[in-house]
């Protein structure tokens, strides 16, 4: 029961972070602040969701898998945010 409760709370928190990230992406005025909002929100969001789901896992392997998934997503999101920000700075912003 405690596990289920933890899942409820943590996944709800994760969802909130995702929604916050999306709202930031939609509402913030310029590219860089949008980038800023987004990287924080989606990483924490996925983290909380993975953590919440972790309380439902049946084996250690699944738990380890979840941890790895989060770690990989963090690595990818961090790298991408850095690189895209640099690319956006380096190139003239052409509008399509």
């Amino acid at each position: 029961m405690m596990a289920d409760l933890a899942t409820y709370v943590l996944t709800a928190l994760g969802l909130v972070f995702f929604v916050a990230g999306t709202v930031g992406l939609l509402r913030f005025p310029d590219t860089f602040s949008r980038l800023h909002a987004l990287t924080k929100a989606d990483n924490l969001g996925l983290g909380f969701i993975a953590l919440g789901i972790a309380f439902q896992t049946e084996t250690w392997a699944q738990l380890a898998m979840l941890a790895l998934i989060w770690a990989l997503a963090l690595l990818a999101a961090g790298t991408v945010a850095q690189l895209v920000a640099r690319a956006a700075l380096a190139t003239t912003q052409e509008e399509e």
Partner: protein
Amino acid sequence: MTLALDLALCVLILGVALASVAGGGVFRAVIFFITYGLFVAMAWARLGALDVALAEAAIGAGLTGVLLLAALGRLRRMNATSPPHRTGLHLPAAFAGAALACALGWAWFALPAPSPPDLGPVMPQSGVGNRVTAVLLNFRAWDTLLESIVLLAALLGVWMLAQDKDWTAPLGPRYHAQAGGVLASFGRLLPPVGLAFGVYLVWAGADSTGGAFQGGTVLAAVGLVALMSNVMRPPRVSQGVLRAALVLGPAVFLCAGLLATASGGAFLSLSPALAKPVILTIEVALTISIAVTLALLVIGASGDGEYAP
């Protein structure tokens, strides 16, 4: 609740597809198409087709995106002109598309009750527990063998697009990255994880989700990261080892098929006792070839670095 989830997913898929076909701008279309692969992978997960979801995730949401984005970059640097206006086929094409969609929709409701072949009785003889792997590498091995050769033909076709003067140059662009930078660290961190995961997929594919194609695609993707971050150098066509790696999978597959003929069985047949080790051997060889072929398909022909300033 289930219905709502599936409906939402279908709406997203259709919306993204519509945006990538009908919206303006090529770059936007490509980005929408990248997200499309992700949603389709979810649809496969909902349909219970895990192996397909894995293939779609690795190919649709991974490799195709890099392929298209790199092509757009090349087109832009060549200052290739975009078409001035729509083709005259606009209305007939819309009509044909609508007719096709309606015909398929009608056919769905007209389908008789399903009568799939029963794989249950023959599964024990296949040597593997995953039905999809059994179909791919045993029951319909001839399809899979031909498909691995299709990959090779496509790569050969891409190589033939090089200019004669560039023929001996390394394949693809001349990637470079700042030493110790973010990209280079990414290129160092990801490949070991991907390698382990790819090997796991091939190994696990015999009895659960995975297989040579999925494993090969994952390996190709991390190989690409290593190439793009300059951790690994792209090869040249003239390297015998490279060409050997490319034909290894089909060659081992053909050998196994012909050995079966030589020992009195049908072409490509596997005796139940030996089926598992032979399938695993073929899968390992196929994975290597698929990984190398896919990575090279994405980076393109030799001499693509000629636009360096």
